[in-house]
């Protein structure tokens, strides 16, 4: 990679305030309910529990993978973290600074935290050249034009696009993989510390997906980045993540180191999800579906465990107790299932 105007990762990042032990991001009780209104008077007839009390931490320098099926709240959660959507309830602490009047401002949080979206076309302004697009945020922050131009060139080189060839093109002149490189360059323009990648490689062909994953890995090492990587592709998430967070209907059902969760999943939903991966070997095909039915609708979910309608182990107690995350092994692997929690009243719970 060419030497650019970007800061290279020094041993001690001057932006690092809390030290290595301080999580980069702490999320407590994140909640977003969307009202459903119908009829001429717009009466509230239901509530989508998109994100319903989600708490987790993102450690410095890690990749936290987020998996779950459509409608489970992954993307809503990403937008809440970026403050694109306003949460009903939230407590965010970025490197020790709480979000709010006494800590970090929304503008400063967004400088430190950037996002890359799935649709590389829709997320670029068709009337702006690539260079204008990448340089837009720094210019809005009042950086001088010449400095911004140098930054744009250095970013383009970092993401593998020759500046002389691409800087003055428009998004429609680029392939999907190239556009996703530009989205990554734009996300890095303000030198963020945390990048949220929401299905950032899902729309790409396999050979291009591999290029972008390699790029993300090298950028992370070069620029000291931390990623929250949201995807429905279980192999890709396993490949890139250090820890993994499994969501089901707006709740975290399991979280832990990726090797632990993939080798011994604790929540019945995680087990079913991992068992649903196609086999890649025609001699060892899946013979029966691991679970039946679709993920249920997040509108007005019934009380108790959200997964119980599809769970083969569901018992009466699951209908009225909403399980909270509890440690499985004392080493950072936790699951929200009554079967794991002693004294929960479930017949399979440890004594």
């Amino acid at each position, binding site marked *: 990679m060419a030497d650019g105007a970007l800061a290279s990762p020094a041993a001690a990042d001057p932006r690092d305030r809390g030290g290595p032990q301080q999580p980069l991001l702490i999320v407590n009780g994140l909640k977003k309910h969307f009202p459903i209104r119908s009829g001429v008077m717009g009466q509230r007839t239901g509530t989508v529990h998109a994100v319903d009390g989600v708490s987790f931490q993102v450690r410095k320098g890690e990749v936290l993978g987020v998996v779950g*099926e*459509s409608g489970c709240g992954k993307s809503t959660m990403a937008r809440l973290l970026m403050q694109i959507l306003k949460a009903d309830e939230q407590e965010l602490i970025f490197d020790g600074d709480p979000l709010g009047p006494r800590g970090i401002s929304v503008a400063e949080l967004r400088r430190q935290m950037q996002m890359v979206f799935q649709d590389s076309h829709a997320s670029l302004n068709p009337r702006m050249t690539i260079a204008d697009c990448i340089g837009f945020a720094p210019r809005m922050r009042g950086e001088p034009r010449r400095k911004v131009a140098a930054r744009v060139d250095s970013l383009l080189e970092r993401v593998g696009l020759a500046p002389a060839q691409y800087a003055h093109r428009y998004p429609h002149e680029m*392939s*999907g*993989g190239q556009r996703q490189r530009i989205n990554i360059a734009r996300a890095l323009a303000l030198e963020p510390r945390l990048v949220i990648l929401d299905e950032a490689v899902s729309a790409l*062909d*396999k*050979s291009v*997906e*591999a*290029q972008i*994953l*390699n790029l993300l*890995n090298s950028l992370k090492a070069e620029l000291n980045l931390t990623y929250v990587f949201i995807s*429905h*592709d*279980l*192999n*890709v998430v*396993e*490949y890139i993540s250090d820890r993994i967070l499994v969501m089901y209907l707006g709740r975290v059902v399991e979280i832990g180191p*990726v*090797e632990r969760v*993939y080798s011994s999943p604790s929540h019945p939903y995680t087990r*079913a*999800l991992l068992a*649903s*991966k*196609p*086999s*890649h*070997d*025609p*001699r060892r*095909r*899946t*013979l*029966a*579906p*691991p*679970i*039946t*039915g*679709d*993920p249920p*609708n997040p509108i007005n979910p019934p009380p108790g465990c959200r997964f119980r309608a599809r769970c083969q182990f569901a018992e009466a107690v699951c209908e009225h107790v909403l399980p909270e995350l509890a440690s499985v092994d004392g080493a950072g692997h936790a699951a929200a299932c009554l079967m794991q929690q002693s004294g929960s009243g479930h017949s399979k719970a440890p004594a």
Partner: protein
Amino acid sequence: MNDTVSHRPPAVSVKDLTVAFERDESRVSAVNGVSYDLARGEVLTVIGESGSGKSVMLRTLLGLVPGHARLGGSVHINGVDMNRLDPATLSAMRGREISMIFQEPSTAFDPVYTIGEQIIETVLRHEDVSHAEAAARAKDMLDLVAIPSAERRLRNFPHEMSGGMRQRAMIALALACRPSVLLADEPTTALDATVQIQILLLLRKLQRELDMALIFVTHDMGVAAEISDRVAVMYAGRFVETGSAEDVLLNASHPYTRSMLDSTVHAGMRGQVLQTIRGAPPDLRALPPGCAFAPRCPAAVGGCRSGQPPAVGLSRTHTAACLQLAAAAA
């Protein structure tokens, strides 16, 4: 294929199929000479990346190509030459002998009619039955694709169903007249993992029970491994490798197939640098004279850039179109 059925024409027979789109000065060569036969009861999966021509090839079988498309070669379905059919006969074949399911069931259904009405309409269109008989068939079809409370679901509009259920309903619609050939264009790509495997297993079961020829188009190697008897890998409008699912997925021979398998993220690859295919897919408006993969191929030699590589038989079932493999076999 055994002797008792060999006199029956194959369900699908495609010979030297070419499809090009001409507009203004440019000519986009989407399909550039594809040939295969498929019998009833067989599943052929066509794997390719975007722009490989796999969807165009599939749609051509149904005559679903725009007016400015230039077709070459032939397509026979159950012995009938599809290119010589008048529009009325073609339309009578669609849904009756050959049917298709799509990636997005929400766009394939008409939003203002119920699922039941749409299945009944299809049955009445093709068969000489009463409305009551067609309605009974519609309910049977929903039972067949394992939609619970079929009677009630027939009265649902498409938007009242979840994604997985809508995909089941589309399969029910496609199979309502018991076609012998089913075409599937990435039907599980938009579905969640736990639903995708259910739909794949359902398709596999119905294909066997109804003795259909199924052509399944996907970009996902894992999906191909789950559903295929035979696999064809498509690149720049040509089949570059064909064979049984085990031939192609476990003993890939063509450099493109091998590169694609190598660059796919599998389980247990943490910490590795992923293999990538250098360069970009070819411009279909200006295909190179030789092998279309040569500019990206790690093994390409001078001869690869001058002529089309011949298809080399690697075993009774397995072929690959590569000059290097031809040289090794000779």
